[in-house]
């Protein structure tokens, strides 16, 4: 079966020299209906990988396929046409900066639909309201500006904006890092439900290993721009093989001292 998202040998260079390489032949596969956790310390290349997959960072080498169709070679009008299908969506880490301060929540959520010319303004508004409900937000927030809602609400608004266009692949960059426990669990539950109901392939970037426990199907560990370990979530979290993964998991703070994160899973 073809995975919803396949990335092979992805290389991203900051400059022209090989020393500026940020990602070195990274591969990532996300089947439909699964959550793939992408972990690694700050600077390991997690965000760059997600941006490269989304087409926001240029690939030096490698290929990205969505539902088996190569998309990394698309340019100009062809790329715009593909993007308007909304099949790959990216949820940015900082919800305040990723929402236009001058657009209302409903306008932001409906933007993807407006770009591809779906329905009339009233239809798009209805779709935006549905997307807000989907992530557990009160539709009345639709008339507010991003600066007038809380951080947790903003994060869910960015999720609703991505979901409104009906994506196949959802790239989430630290979606719960700035949230309190209640909001974090809520967002994770929404993601868990969506991947089952909508057969979404989700790539969940995080340095908070606790947020992956019980949610991720597979985990990919990135270190210095390379994949050092990959496998089922339980295996990577409970019995990590690579020394870097072992260090990463052991470094998770705990009241009782270091222990496997999966053992103190969230609800």
């Amino acid at each position, binding site marked *: 079966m073809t995975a919803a998202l396949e990335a092979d040998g992805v290389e991203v260079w900051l400059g022209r020299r090989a020393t500026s390489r940020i990602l070195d032949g990274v591969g990532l596969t996300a089947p439909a209906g699964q959550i793939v956790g992408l972990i690694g310390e700050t600077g390991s290349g997690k965000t760059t990988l997600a941006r490269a997959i989304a087409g926001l960072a240029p690939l030096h080498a490698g290929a990205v396929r969505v539902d088996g169709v190569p998309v990394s070679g698309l340019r100009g009008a062809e790329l715009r046409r*593909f993007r*308007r299908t909304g099949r790959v969506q*990216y949820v940015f880490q900082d919800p305040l*900066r*990723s929402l236009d301060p001058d657009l209302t929540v409903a306008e932001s959520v409906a933007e993807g639909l407006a770009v*591809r010319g779906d329905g009339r303004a009233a239809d798009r508004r209805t779709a935006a309201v549905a997307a807000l409900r989907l992530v557990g937000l009160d539709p009345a927030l639709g008339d507010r500006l991003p600066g007038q809602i809380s951080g947790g609400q903003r994060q869910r608004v960015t999720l609703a904006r991505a979901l409104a266009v009906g994506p196949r692949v959802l790239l989430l960059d630290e979606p719960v890092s700035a949230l309190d426990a209640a909001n974090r669990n809520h967002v994770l539950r929404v993601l868990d439900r969506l991947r089952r109901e909508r057969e979404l392939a989700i790539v969940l970037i995080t340095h908070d290993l606790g947020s992956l426990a019980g949610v991720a199907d597979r985990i990919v560990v990135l270190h210095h721009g390379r994949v050092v370990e990959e496998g089922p979530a339980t295996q990577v979290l409970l019995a990590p093989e690579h020394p870097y993964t072992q260090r990463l998991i052991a470094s998770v703070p705990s009241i009782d001292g270091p222990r496997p994160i999966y053992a103190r899973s969230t609800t």
Partner: protein
Amino acid sequence: MRALRLAVRLPSARVALAVLGVVVVLMAVGEWLAPYDPLHQDTTAILAGPSAEHWLGTDYVGRDVLSRLLAGSRLSVIAAAEAVGLGLLLGVLPGLASVYLGRVFEWLSLRVMDGLMALPFIIFAIAVAALLGNGLHQAMFAVGVLLAPTFYRVTRAAAGGLRQAQYVEAATLFGATRWRIVRTHVWQKVLPTVVVTTATAMAGALLVVSSLTFLGIGVQPPAPTWGGMLASDLGYLSQRPFGPLAPALLIIVTVAALNALADAITVDPATSTKEAHDAVRR
């Protein structure tokens, strides 16, 4: 737009708008409000002081100062607006395009603007007058062209900062065209900066019209302008010391109103909140 709407709440902005409203009214109907023909010379009342007949006195050939001020409003303001309008057109559009139309246009437009910035103003104005003839429109063309780099730079700086904004990237991921991105996400953020620059440029252009008239470029005598009156009145200070006061006051008040309006909206659009405006008010 929010920054503009919030600015109007400030008392200074309201006063500035009221003053500018009066100037616009003067511009529109000043000629008809003038009690005398602004070109009529009364040789029996040369350099006369204020009186019931001539409220602001007369000039060195006996023309009524109030009538000339009122009649000159249109020419002065239109001249400044013409120059600023041209500067806006030649600066804002290339400024936006330099950010979104690729590196070739960016490089070319930057070099053109660098070239314009290197031109000495007076020499350029004289050269334009020599090439196209000495007249108001020619002089304002010269001023407008030289104002363009200012608009280009501020627009480019404001728009360039938004190129990597995450909401712009989100729109890009939706397949939005550059035009749509500029229209939806960039223009609203750039507009307050452009408005501020326009206000200050208008103030500057009013003074430039005056200085060019002083040099005999642009508006030709006997057509009245505020700057021209100021220049001619300065030559008769010993006989009529208060002479330049009225045109100078008009220029100063208009320039101050434009600057006050500009100040009121000088708030970063990304952080334009009521609190920020309250801080300005304090």
